[in-house]
């Protein structure tokens, strides 16, 4: 079988429609949107039009969209801006969760060094947090609540609308890292009371290195990059017009096909989950209902994730793992640890993330390939021998 790409949470293949839309902006319409001449003004029109289209998809005003270099920059800018606002009022407490992306966690770590107090909410075994947890954590000096929309490793979707309601009621800025959600589930910043939202084009078939930050009117932003007056003075640098055009087109395409794709993906995802669940001593990570239609994440007892990935790659399957050995650090993924998977189990994790291009045939092949490789690796694992011989107790029953 040809290559089967099941790592769409890492990045996606670009949409052909988006590529086509981008090409003229690398060719004849190469102008700088800040220039007054016609080729520049054509680029400026594309910028305005793209901003308008993206705003429409999120349910906000086009003035509330700021283009950035991607999810990481959006997260950084959102959090640092809210912190700046908070500091001015003497509010230096932030509420977030233990399983955020590092773009959020590391920014919060930085703020901690500047005297901010950070509350990281613990995550349930199902990979969820509740609005009640958020409500209980908010204090009079809380300046920001940042909760990711959907987790990048285990795909769980958080109760964003309810959290938004609470933050609005309490008058606290609410930011959500929606990098894994936008283009895959319906996001509406009005209905969900979201004040700031990060998104990244390459997670929905746009290009890499481009993203956006939605910021509700009235919330002043702090700029991370000083220079020209682009993006209303909040993000200097000549705009990446081709990438912005591609992002708008890719988002439109994703949203137009969302119902159809969700139906197809949910079916494929459940097939994959059902298939992998038949592997003994395996466990699905994250709630099976409140999860992205694209995400499957498992832990297999007695094996290590990197060797699993390498052998799957030999079989043409591109996957990902939260094992320490794949991250280059000593510790396995903080997300798996946050949902209570112990080290031994977290090392044996596998993440498969789908796109609408995947087929049932690919899923069937993947299930049998994973079964084969897991059995093979267990066959040479001293831990597995001890477990089978009853010298050690299984952690995953």
């Amino acid at each position, binding site marked *: 079988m040809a290559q089967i790409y099941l790592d769409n949470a890492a990045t996606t293949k670009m949409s052909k429609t988006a590529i086509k839309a981008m090409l003229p902006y690398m060719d004849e319409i190469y102008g700088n949107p800040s220039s007054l001449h016609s080729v520049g003004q054509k680029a400026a029109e594309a910028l305005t039009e793209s901003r308008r289209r993206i705003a429409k998809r999120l349910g906000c005003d086009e003035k509330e969209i700021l283009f950035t270099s991607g999810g990481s920059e959006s997260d950084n800018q959102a959090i640092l801006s809210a912190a700046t606002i908070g500091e001015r009022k003497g509010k230096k407490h932030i509420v977030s969760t233990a399983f955020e992306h590092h773009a959020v966690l590391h920014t919060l770590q930085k703020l901690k060094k500047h005297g901010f107090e950070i509350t990281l909410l613990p995550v349930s075994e199902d990979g969820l947090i509740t609005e009640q947890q958020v409500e209980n954590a908010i204090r009079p000096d809380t300046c920001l609540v940042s909760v990711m929309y959907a987790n990048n490793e285990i795909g769980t979707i958080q109760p964003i609308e309810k959290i938004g309601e609470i933050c609005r009621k309490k008058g606290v800025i609410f930011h959500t890292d929606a990098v894994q959600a936008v283009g895959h589930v319906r996001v509406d910043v009005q209905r969900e009371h979201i004040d700031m939202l990060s998104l990244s084009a390459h997670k929905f078939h746009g290009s890499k290195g481009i993203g956006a930050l939605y910021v509700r009117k009235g919330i002043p932003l702090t700029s991370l990059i000083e220079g020209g007056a682009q993006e209303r003075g909040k993000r200097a640098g000549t705009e990446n017009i081709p990438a912005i055009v591609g992002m708008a087109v890719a988002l439109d395409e994703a949203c137009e096909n969302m119902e159809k794709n969700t139906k197809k993906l949910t079916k494929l995802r459940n097939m994959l989950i059902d298939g992998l669940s038949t592997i003994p001593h395996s466990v699905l990570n994250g709630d099976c209902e409140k999860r992205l239609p694209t995400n499957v994440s498992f832990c297999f007892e*007695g094996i290590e994730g990197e*060797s699993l990935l*390498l052998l799957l790659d030999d079989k043409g399957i591109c996957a990902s793992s939260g094992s*320490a050995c794949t991250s280059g650090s*000593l510790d396995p993924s903080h997300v798996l640890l946050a949902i209570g998977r112990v*080290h031994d189990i977290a*090392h044996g994790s596998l993440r498969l993330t789908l796109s609408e291009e995947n087929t049932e045939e690919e899923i069937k092949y993947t299930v049998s390939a994973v079964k084969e490789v897991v059995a093979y690796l267990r066959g*040479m*694992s*001293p831990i597995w021998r001890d477990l089978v011989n009853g010298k050690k107790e299984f952690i995953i029953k």
Partner: protein
Amino acid sequence: MALYSEKVMDHFRNPRNVGVIENADGIGEVGNAKCGDIMKIYLKIEDGIIADVKFETFGCGSAIASSSMATELIKGEPVSEALALTNKAVVEALDGLPAHKLHCSVLAEEAIKKAIQDYYEKNGIEYDKTQFPNCENCSHCSAHAE
């Protein structure tokens, strides 16, 4: 460039000497599941020669390849030669490992030493304890010792 050399991938894909030896003369197990690598070495020793060696490994690609290569390097060698095997020799034989994977080759060296130590203990053979790793506070896993 790929993460691993051709040699590493060869030993990872087709590991030599996988398995167990029933009634082994020496068994050595190092590492722990917490840090993601466990290596277990079984030795059959006849007339001071490593007559047979098998391994079981829970770990990443370089851990499996290091086990495979290390067992190949000591098979048929005198015990004294096996004791002298360094992780450096394993890494060189594998045409190198990425820096953050070097600990996997250390595990291979230590697992062999531990298996030989076990052989000495079982047979009441006198030996110099300082030649052997002290697994109670081994450096690469102590980060997780709790």
